[in-house]
Each structure stands twice: as C-alpha cells, then as structure tokens.
C-alpha cells in the first residue's frame, strides 16, 4: 500500500503505532522513566506511604469522634491487616541469593532463618503503622493521655520486633520463647515501669527524647494541645511531614525487596512469559549495562601467583564465617544488586500489583474518614478520587464512584451510606484477591490474582465468610465485654481473655497443620501439603481478623461509654494504654502464629519457597 504524504491522519496513526511499538524512542520527556528508577520509585513510595499512614490515622480520629464510623474503622483495619499479611507473604522467597544457596548443601534452617529475618522488615513497617494508628486513636480519646506513652508504644513495637528478628534462633522453642518473652517484657515495662524509680529514671530521658525526635511524638504533642475536633488540616500537615521521615526509611527498606526470576528455575517451575503493561516498558533501562567493578578486574597475563594471592584473600575474607555466613553473602549480594536488575525484578514480581491493589483499598476505606476529619464533605472527597481515577485512565473505577455520588444528590438520605459504607465495601472487594491469595495458600501460582476463584459464587462465599467472621468473632467478644462491664470485672481484661480464647482456638489447628505439613513426605510439594498450608493460612487470617474485631469492639464500647475508664493503681489514664498495648501484644502473637506456620511448613521443602 502506498502511503500518501498528505494523508496526515494516517501518518499520525502510523506514528502512534510506532510509538507504541518503540515506546522509548519517541516518548515525550515527561513520560520517560527516570534514569535512576530507584530514586523515583522511592519518592513515589514515600508519598504513598505517608499518605496512607495518615489516612489510617484519620480513620482512628474519625472513629473516636463518631461511633458510627467504627464500622468503617473495622473495614479499614481489615484491609490493613490483609496488607500486613500480604507483605509478609510476599517477602518470602524474594531473595536472589537464596537461589544460589538453595542449590548448595547448606542446612535448610540457615537459609530459612536468613529469609525469616528479612521478612521481619515489612512487619516492622506495618507495625509502625499499627502503633501510630492506635496512638492517634488513643490521643483523640481525651486530654488525660500521657504523651510519653504514645511514642513508647510505637518504639516498643519496633524494638520488640527488631529484637526478635535479631535474636531469632534456628530452633522453634527459642523462637517462641523469645517472642512471648519479649511481649511479656513489653507489657511489664509498660505497666510497672513507673513504679520502679531506677527504671523510671532511666526511661524518662529516653521518653523525652522520643517525644521531640519522633514523628508520632510530634503528632501526639500537637494532638494533645488542640481541640478534639477541628484540627484536621494542621494534623494532616504535621502528620504528613512526620510520617514522611518514617516512610523514607520504609522506602529504602522496600528498595531491597526483589524477586529473582531464577527462583523459578530452582523450584522447577516452568518459565513464565511476562507481559509489560503500558508505560512500564522501557528497554533503555533494561539494557543498561552492569557497571564493572573498580580496580584491576583482570590481569594482563594468566599469572598463577596472582591467582594464589586472590585465592588467599578469598579464603581469608570468608574465614571465621560459618555456613550461616552464606546469609551474609546473600545480603551483600542484595545490597549490591545492580540498578537495572532491580528495575527488572521490581516489574517482574506481581507484588507490585498487590501493593497497588492494597493501596487503593486502604485509600477508599480511609478517605471518607480523612475528609470528615479535615472538614471536607466525603462526597467531594470521593468525587475528587473519581476524577483522579479518570485522569489515570481508569474510567470504570471512576464511574463506579461517580454514579453513587450522583445518586446522593437525587436521594440525599443515601448520602451516609454512599459516602461511608460504600467505599468500605468497595475496599473490601478490592482487597479480596489479597485475602484470596492468602487463603488459597502461599506457594501456588505466580500471582495472587491467579489464585482467586473467579466465579461469583466463590466471591460471595468469601464475602459471606468475612461477614460471618465479624459476627462469629465479634458477637461473643462484645457479649463478654458487656457482661464484664455489667458485673464490674472490667472491659479490657474481659476483651483480652475473650480474644485470647479465640486466638487459642484458631492457633491450635494452625500449628497442627504446620506439624502435619512438616511430617508429610514431599511437604508443600504435595496437594495435601498445600491444602494444609492453605488451611493454616486461613486460620492465621482468622486470628488477625478476630483480634482486629475484638479491639475495634472494645474501642467502640469505650467510645460510646465515654468516660468509662478502669482505675489502675490510681492512674486512670493508664487504662487507655491497655488498648494499644493489647493490640500490639496480640498482633505480635498472631504474627508469631503465622510465622510459626511458615517456618514449620518450609523447613522440609525450602526449595519450594513461594515464587510470587
């Protein structure tokens, strides 16, 4: 076919086709990927983390100021918990050095411990969110909250988590004892620290330092000085700045996550065909050569003396390192991974998609609360979100939001449902695949989405299960708490006891499943092993949700019955401390259950560490 030059429309079409085929050649400069993708991704991640952390905190504020919003708080908390699980899950098997280690006769616990330590990093990340979330909830409950306890809650979570990561021993009893001991020590120090003068003398300067040097300390200081309602814009600004600092470190942490496609080879999975979507295709970055090392990489002649010297250095460098040092070698590899590999791997892994999904879910769940706190109508906030979706080329999502918003103008009484409940339902729907992935088991499939049952019946079943979970876990706990209040036992002890019973009931099958997996020949590489792991994972999810529901229920009760405090050693303000402490302790315990399951399941078949 002959192309006429004056056929401008066809020329333009051809140009568009060419641009699609060769996106890096003719793409406008503002759409080109930065030459240093890590920095840009890190910045973007920082912004997202700051924003979402802040939204989570706003959910807490909204829930305290408006008891009805507890429903929304639960939903966002649910999404939050799912995000945490997904983060933990995806962290497994994302280590390029493990691919090398797996083919060597290295004791599997060594490999697994190396891996397990790394998966505490995202736990730390989400733990900060949790601590901040509860801190804000607590600070909004009244002026009596002692300022120093807020950052100590956050930092104790970090310290215990990090301490466990460091102290984690290859054997199960040490692991569990460390965990439980750490939680107990945390609780004891929190509750009894002020009674012991020497301890208090040592701790108080630290508390002061934390108050002025940590974001949550600033946030709490500002929150304590401001009226309970109406400080939204200020807290948004300060909270954003504060969380930015934390998020930066999180982003740096995240930059070290990667999924090595070679794991697929090690695990014997057939290679997959990866599909690049949209603007992510950038061959220039992918083809960027690896920078050579500095120094004399080669010698001019093949000199045995040179080789002997190099060999001697290699032996000396690694001398004194046990086989566990291979973990060190792997970590070193991770740190020095070339930028283009990191770029490639970040895009190969479906974890990015999971993260995006989770972010949207959290955003949807938290946006109405944030808008209410900031004094903006949720209707307009959601409308803005619809515009953002439209601008990002997601017209269906925009339509999904815009239609109900428009409906509220026609039927004003529906505004509350549309602006508060509807986004939460959508958030849960969005996050279902994440839950589905967790539900159906860790090691299967390359994508969480691929594991989700596609039929509507399956979706309905999951939704019904979620609803049932809230009822099953929430009703007995709420009943117990109400009864306890009636008989004067105390809401918090009753809630903790009730939650503990739920945890025990769910934890036991989880551990049993892991034991059976461990003793099953072939482990996770058998259908039975996978089913058991799925079952155990489901138990873990149930535990997390039960804890969330219980804590939110207690919060709701304490909020509704405002002024209900439990005198504690003549310091009523400490009663409020029990809630975040219980949250953190239970969160740690449930995390331990999940990790225990994974640990036991993978010890036999570490070669099948999930390829996600």
């Amino acid at each position, binding site marked *: 076919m002959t192309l006429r030059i004056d056929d401008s429309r066809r020329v333009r079409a051809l140009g568009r086709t060419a641009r699609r085929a060769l996106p890096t050649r003719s793409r406008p400069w503002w759409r080109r990927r930065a030459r240093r993708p890590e920095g840009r991704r890190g910045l973007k991640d920082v912004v997202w983390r700051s924003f979402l952390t802040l939204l989570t905190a706003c959910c807490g504020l909204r829930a305290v100021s408006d008891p009805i919003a507890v429903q929304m708080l639960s939903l966002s908390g649910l999404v939050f918990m799912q995000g945490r699980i997904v983060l933990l899950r995806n962290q497994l098997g994302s280590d390029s050095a493990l691919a090398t280690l797996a083919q*060597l006769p290295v004791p599997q616990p060594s490999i697994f411990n190396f891996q397990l330590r790394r998966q505490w990093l995202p736990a730390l990340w989400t733990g900060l969110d949790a601590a901040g979330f509860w801190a804000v909830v607590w600070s909004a409950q009244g002026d009596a909250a002692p300022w120093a306890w807020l950052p100590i809650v956050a930092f104790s979570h970090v310290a215990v988590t990090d301490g466990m990561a460091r102290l984690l021993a290859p054997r199960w009893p040490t692991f569990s004892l460390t965990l439980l001991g750490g939680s107990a020590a945390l609780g004891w120090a929190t509750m009894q620290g002020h009674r012991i003068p020497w301890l208090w003398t040592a701790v108080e300067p630290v508390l002061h330092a934390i108050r002025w040097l940590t974001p949550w300390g600033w946030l709490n200081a500002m929150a304590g000085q401001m009226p309970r309602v109406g400080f939204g814009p200020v807290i948004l600004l300060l909270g954003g700045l504060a969380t930015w600092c934390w998020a930066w470190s999180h982003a740096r942490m995240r930059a070290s996550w990667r999924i090595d496609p070679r794991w697929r*080879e090690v695990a014997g999975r057939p290679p997959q065909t990866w599909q690049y979507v949209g603007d992510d295709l950038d061959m220039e970055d992918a083809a960027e050569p690896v920078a*050579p*090392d500095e120094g004399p990489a080669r010698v001019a002649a093949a000199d*045995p003396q040179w*080789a002997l010297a190099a*060999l001697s250095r290699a032996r000396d460098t690694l001398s004194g390192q046990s086989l566990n040092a291979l973990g060190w070698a792997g970590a070193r590899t991770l740190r020095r991974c070339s930028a283009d590999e990191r770029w490639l791997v970040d895009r190969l892994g479906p974890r990015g998609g999971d993260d995006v999904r989770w972010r949207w879910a959290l955003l949807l769940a938290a946006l109405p609360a944030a808008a209410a706190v900031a004094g903006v109508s949720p209707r307009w906030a959601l409308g803005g979100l619809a515009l953002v979706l439209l601008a990002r080329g997601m017209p269906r999502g925009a339509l999904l939001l815009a239609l109900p918003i428009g409906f509220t103008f026609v039927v004003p009484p529906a505004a509350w449902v549309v602006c508060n409940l509807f986004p939460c339902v959508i958030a849960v729907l969005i996050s279902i695949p994440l839950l589905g992935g967790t539900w159906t088991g860790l090691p299967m499939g390359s994508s969480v989405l691929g594991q989700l049952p596609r039929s509507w019946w399956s979706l309905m079943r999951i939704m019904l299960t979620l609803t049932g979970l809230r009822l099953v876990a929430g009703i007995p706990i709420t009943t117990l708490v109400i009864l306890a209040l009636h008989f004067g036992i105390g809401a918090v002890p009753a809630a903790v006891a009730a939650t503990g019973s739920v945890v025990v009931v769910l934890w036991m099958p989880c551990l049993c499943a892991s034991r059976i997996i461990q003793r099953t*020949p072939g*482990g996770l590489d058998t259908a039975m092993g996978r089913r058991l792991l799925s079952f155990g994972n489901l138990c873990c999810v149930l535990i997390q949700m039960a804890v969330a529901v219980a804590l939110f229920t207690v919060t709701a009760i304490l909020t509704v019955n405002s002024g209900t405090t439990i005198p504690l050693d003549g310091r009523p303000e400490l009663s409020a401390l029990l809630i975040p402490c219980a949250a953190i302790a239970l969160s740690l315990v449930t995390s331990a259950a999940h990790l225990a399951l994974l640990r036991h399941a993978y010890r036999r078949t*570490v070669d099948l560490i999930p390829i996600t």
Partner: protein
Amino acid sequence: MDVVLRGLGKRFRAEDVLTEVDLDLGPGQTVALIGLNGAGKTTLLRCLAGVIAPSRGSIRWNGGDSVRDDMDLHRRLMFLPDSPLLIEDQSVVQNVVMFLRAYGREDAVTDEAVVGVLGELDLLEHCDATVATLSRGQRYKTALATLLLIRPELWLLDEPFASGMDPQGMQTLKRHGQSATATGSCVVYTTQIIEIAERFCDVLLVLDRGRLAQRFDRGQLRAMPAEGPDSLGERLSAFRERR
C-alpha cells in the same frame, strides 16, 4: 552413589512433566539424557538433585529418602544448571571458596589444585573479576571449576555442551568426567547434541514427553549407523513427528 528411581512422576499444575520413570544409576556410569524440548530432561535432573520433590514415585539416594535433609548426602552430589547460580558480586575465587566451604572441601582442596583447575579452564586471568562481569561461558566455567574441585560422587549437568563454553572447556569437562567415572563417580548430563551423546556416554536415555522412551548402552550406540532410519537422529525425528 546408587540412585534408584521408581515410578517417578512430576506434575506442574495440570501438566505431567515426568511420568513413571524407572531408572538405576550406579558408580562409574556416564549417562546422557537426550530428548526434544520439554521432554523432561531438566526436570529429571532437578529431581535427582533434590531441588524439587517428585509428585509421585520415589527416589532413593544410597537407600535414603530425602537429599535435602541429609547434608552429608547432599554434599556427595552436585547439580549444575545450564545457567549456573553464582553470587554475582563476588569474584571467581570467592565463589569457588564459598562452594568449597559449603561442600566441606575447603581444607581438602589445596590452593594449587584451585589454580590448576582455573588454569585449565582459562579462568586464571579472571580469577579476581566479579562474576557479573564475566561472559556466559566464563560463568559456566566458574561453576564447572567448583564441580571439578569438589568432585562429587554424582555429577548432574544440565546442557553442559550448550553452555557457552569454548571447545577447550568442553574437552576439560569430558576429560575430568571420564576421570571421575573411572574413580567411581556417576555423571549424568543432558544434551541436544547427538554426536556428543553418542560418543560420551555409557548409557543413553531418550526421554519423550516425560517418559523414558528408549535406552541404549554403549554397544548399541556403536552398532547404530550414523545415518539412515536406524540412526539416533532419525529416531529422535520420529518422536517429533509423533507429537
């Protein structure tokens, strides 16, 4: 090392990659695995190496069940994938030392032996270069050097003759392989090169769609014509046509 496979099967999702594989491997054997792409050669090697667990059947290494739990047993075999996994930012000698240490052979292997093997594989001049800067063939040679130094009882090599090595490297591999089998080791490798498979093996196994379709010993291979319908190449072509 005696390895006994009985009814071995491996399934990836809904696809059976290996089906009912029965095989006995013993000391002093050189076994070539040949077959069309996707026949299950690499999967069989991975199963033998204990990297993946079979879906059905059993593998017994010296009468033991699991190679992954038994470090002593694991140290008696070595699997070399076609793209060897090495620590990218470490030098050739650092990788060699790491492998030796993992296999518990660091003290047994002298510096002179390391230098000798590196020299045989033309890696001396690159000994201090990081693996990331090496070519594909040199990377394979690095992994091969570790194998030659460790000298396990069971060599499992995936496509060693299509690994980017130069002819000198291939000759070194063959020479060491023959030396190893003479001292009781067993060498199992996959290849697509019929000429090599015909000349460098004691037993040639033809895999077709996950099954051991044919087995030839050295005598049969010698008696096989180089061309014509009974030649090995024509037999493989027949498998392809049957597909």
